[in-house]
């Protein structure tokens, strides 16, 4: 966990440095290019200006040689400052003049077709010794002869300046990046340190120590929210674990009861010297407990599957009244035995999309509960009606003794029985209502119990 945080920190820093480097290189590159072209432009302008100057300085000697007057300087040493290269050729390419600085080197070679015609031709060229120059040409007439005047300045200072700057930048850029990286790393570390603290704390939370929570300073930032979300999850987990622990311990107790009976009946039976009929009875009694165990385990399996979200609902549109009638029909014989009267009333058209089997099971379980607790001769009524927002409401009411207020909250708890002593004769393990509640809630519905004193119980199911 901590290693991962460190990785994140490094990753952040690397990203940051890489992006900074890219931006710096882009800015630096474009600045260089801009500067370079501006300076070269300037060279071109100088060259053009100088061509203008130089044009007037040429003259033909009586021998027919082309010369250039260079005696216009006030100070002779000024001549040395001028670093221009000048070459004059005839349009055919014969060299007519090269200034002193150029010496014997060729400037620009053989003229191309339109060189210097109607303005200035600018280009980069190499002297024959490799010196890079910026060259401007201009066609000029003197004494009826056409002259191609070429004037150039060396580009070498421009390039060497650029190279110096590149060298300096290469030296400085890594330093800048390193400094930025360090700063970024420190920043990332600072920003991530609360997460690291949370991670350390979270690591200490085990199933046994689920009550622990992450530090939450109440801040409304992302980390505060993270801590709160995590803590909420922990709270739900803790609740689920508690429920599971209670369920496991309750289930063990419930399983123990029939086991204890099997054991006692078997042991006592073996000690007796009974006849065939008596042994049959003993084995039968043990088998009854086995059946009870089996159905208890079946119920537990259903619950555990429901808990694990393993059960899939197959929804179909079901007419609720018909389903209630069917559920009641299953228990009809029990009602007749107790002379109970069943009243079904309400909207026979109401229907809802549910898993038929599970809703039926819920209805059977609740009705069975009503049958068990109704005194003989009483009435059980089932009312179906349409509720708000497309819901269907089913109310199942009995006129039994009702459930005391202090127990009402717990009737849907697993293994809960109002009358602990009576359960064996009525055959329930206290799971029926909790299964009904699960089945209804799995459909997104709700189930409520109302039991005002002396008015029996009403279970109200809201479906759909």
């Amino acid at each position, binding site marked *: 966990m901590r290693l991962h945080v460190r990785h994140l920190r490094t990753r952040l820093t690397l990203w940051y440095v890489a992006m900074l480097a890219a931006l710096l290189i882009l800015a630096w590159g474009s600045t260089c290019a801009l500067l370079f072209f501006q300076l070269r432009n300037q060279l071109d302008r100088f060259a053009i200006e100088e061509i203008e100057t130089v044009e007037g300085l040429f003259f033909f000697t009586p021998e027919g040689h082309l010369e250039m007057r260079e005696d216009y300087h006030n100070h002779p040493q000024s001549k040395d400052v001028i670093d221009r290269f000048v070459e004059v050729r005839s349009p055919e390419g014969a060299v007519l003049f090269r200034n002193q600085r150029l010496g014997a080197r060729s400037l620009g070679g053989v003229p191309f077709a339109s060189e210097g015609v109607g303005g200035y031709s600018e280009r980069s060229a190499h002297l024959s010794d490799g010196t890079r120059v910026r060259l401007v040409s201009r066609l000029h007439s003197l004494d009826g002869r056409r002259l191609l005047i070429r004037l150039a300045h060396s580009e070498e200072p421009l390039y060497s300046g650029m190279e110096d700057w590149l060298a300096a930048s290469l030296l400085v850029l890594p330093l800048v990046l390193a400094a930025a990286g360090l700063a970024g790393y420190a920043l990332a570390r600072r920003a991530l340190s609360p997460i690291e603290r949370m991670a350390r704390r979270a690591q200490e939370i085990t199933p046994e120590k689920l009550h622990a929570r992450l530090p939450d300073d109440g801040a409304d930032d992302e980390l505060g929210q993270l801590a709160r979300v995590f803590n909420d999850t922990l709270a739900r987990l803790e609740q689920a674990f508690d429920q599971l622990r209670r369920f496991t311990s309750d289930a063990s107790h419930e399983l123990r009861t029939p086991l204890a009976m099997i054991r006692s009946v078997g042991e006592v039976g073996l000690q007796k010297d009974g006849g065939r009929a008596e042994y*049959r009875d003993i084995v039968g009694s043990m088998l009854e407990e*086995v059946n009870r165990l089996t159905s208890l385990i079946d119920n537990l399996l259903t619950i555990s599957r429901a808990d694990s979200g393993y059960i899939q609902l197959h929804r179909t549109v079901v007419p609720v009244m018909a389903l209630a009638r069917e559920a009641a029909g299953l228990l009809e*014989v029990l009602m007749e035995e107790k002379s109970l009267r069943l009243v079904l009333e309400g909207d026979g058209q109401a229907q809802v999309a549910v898993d038929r*089997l599970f809703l039926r099971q819920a209805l*059977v379980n609740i009705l069975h509960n009503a049958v068990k607790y109704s005194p003989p001769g009483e009435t059980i009524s089932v009312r179906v009606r349409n509720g708000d927002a497309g819901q269907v409401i089913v109310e199942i009411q009995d006129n039994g003794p009702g459930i005391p207020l202090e127990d009402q909250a717990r009737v849907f708890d697993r293994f809960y029985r109002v009358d602990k002593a009576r359960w064996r004769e009525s055959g329930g393990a206290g799971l*029926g209502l909790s299964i009904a509640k699960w089945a209804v809630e799995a459909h997104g519905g709700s189930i409520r119990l109302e039991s005002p004193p002396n008015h029996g119980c009403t279970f109200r199911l809201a479906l759909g």
Partner: protein
Amino acid sequence: MPTGPFPSYKGSVHILVVEDEQKMAKALQEGLEADDYSVRLAHTGEEGFYLIQAQSFDLVILDVMLPGHDGFEILATLRRRNVQTPVLLLTSRDAIEDRVRGLDTGADDYLVKPFAFPELLARTRVLLRRGKPDVSQRLKLADLEMDVPQRSVVRGPHQIDLTAREFDLLEYLFANKGRVVSREMLARDIWKETARQTPIDNVIDAQIVRLRRKLDGQFDRKLLHTVRGVGFVLREEDES
């Protein structure tokens, strides 16, 4: 348990039971033999597989949880080799996926442990006489007579009025005359309840009580008996 390569069989119907739990295997063997089947036991899947290859059986009762190759694997191999002997799977898991897997693999039926023994016998009978159901029109036991098409029941000189459900129940008991039927069998076959966790046992008990009242109430000779912890049986004499 027969040990030699040529065991002597009592009956003419041969059943192979592949079950690794000794107690369970012994109980299955004794229970099936009491119903006049010849039973051969195998304690591992490999042994069972070998036996099926070596001799012919009318039915194989195959436990899923076996050491080594489990029941599903044995069954799949058998079906791949085109062995068509009916197979009844015994499984301790009743997740729908397991049932589907069993039937997909080629099982003819499955039974979830713990099962009621009468249920096993009933399924065995169904698998063995598959395709030839015996439908009797007039059923008779002592002075009790049942005319299925006419839906009438007479005991001695007395006409007995039954509800539809009671009639179905009695017909089912008649079909299993002399054999115990369990509550699970009644729940599935008469009430069509598939979920084992409905409070159906109370309903069945109450229904039986009412049927018995009508059937045996005014007669000395009782025909419908409860076998405690197992189920109900229709027969002339109470054995206990």
